């Protein structure tokens, strides 16, 4: 099963869509490496949080992805 990617806020503009499916890979680093360079850089920024299946990932370097995971990229939330 592929991974389902979700891009929130301005990241959807960078990705060209709010969602995308990609072939399963075992790590977030491998996932980012398979994307367009501009998108990969935007998603990999330190201030972008990542949630997998609705849970925010504490340490993205150590996280193991599984087939079918939903990976959401969350930019800082907007101010009031």
């Amino acid at each position, binding site marked *: 099963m592929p991974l389902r990617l*979700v891009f*929130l*806020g*301005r990241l959807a*503009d960078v990705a060209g869509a709010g969602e995308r499916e990609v072939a399963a890979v075992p790590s977030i680093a491998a996932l980012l490496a398979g994307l367009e360079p501009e998108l990969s850089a935007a998603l990999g920024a330190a201030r972008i949080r990542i*949630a997998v*299946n*609705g849970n*925010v990932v504490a340490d993205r370097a150590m996280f193991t992805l599984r087939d079918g995971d*939903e990976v*959401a990229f*969350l*930019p*800082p*939330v*907007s*101010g*009031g």
Partner: protein
Amino acid sequence: MADVRLLTGSFDAAVEIERFLAANGEAGGVASFIGRVRPGGGVEALELSHYEPLTLPGMQALAAEVEARWQVTGLLIVHRSGVMLPGEAIVLVAAAAHHRREAIEAVDFAMDHLKGDSWFWKREKRADGWHWIEPRERDFSDLARWDEKSAN
């Protein structure tokens, strides 16, 4: 038990307050805050997007924290998402309590965390199109107030 709602359509804040007053008849004090899309400034529309698996659970967790921290007898958190026009309500927080200070601080705390710490992304439509809104420094300082209070 808090009433927490993430709405995609418009709501009438005064009607919600009326219902909240009726549903919390035993409480002596009811504080509320209503946030609306501010007219003017060239903003034609506002869009809030959310991420379902995080946004509503986050609001519910915030409600639970408010209830743990203040002696409220009732709590209402209503937040819009989607496209809103100037003048429309974005958010309503209401808290009922026996004591005035509990109700007001509960609303204040909930608003600071909804604004500065919840999973909404906002963009404004102006004459030249849509613009994403970045985090504001003031939201972080508003949030930090509560950490200082906890440390006391």
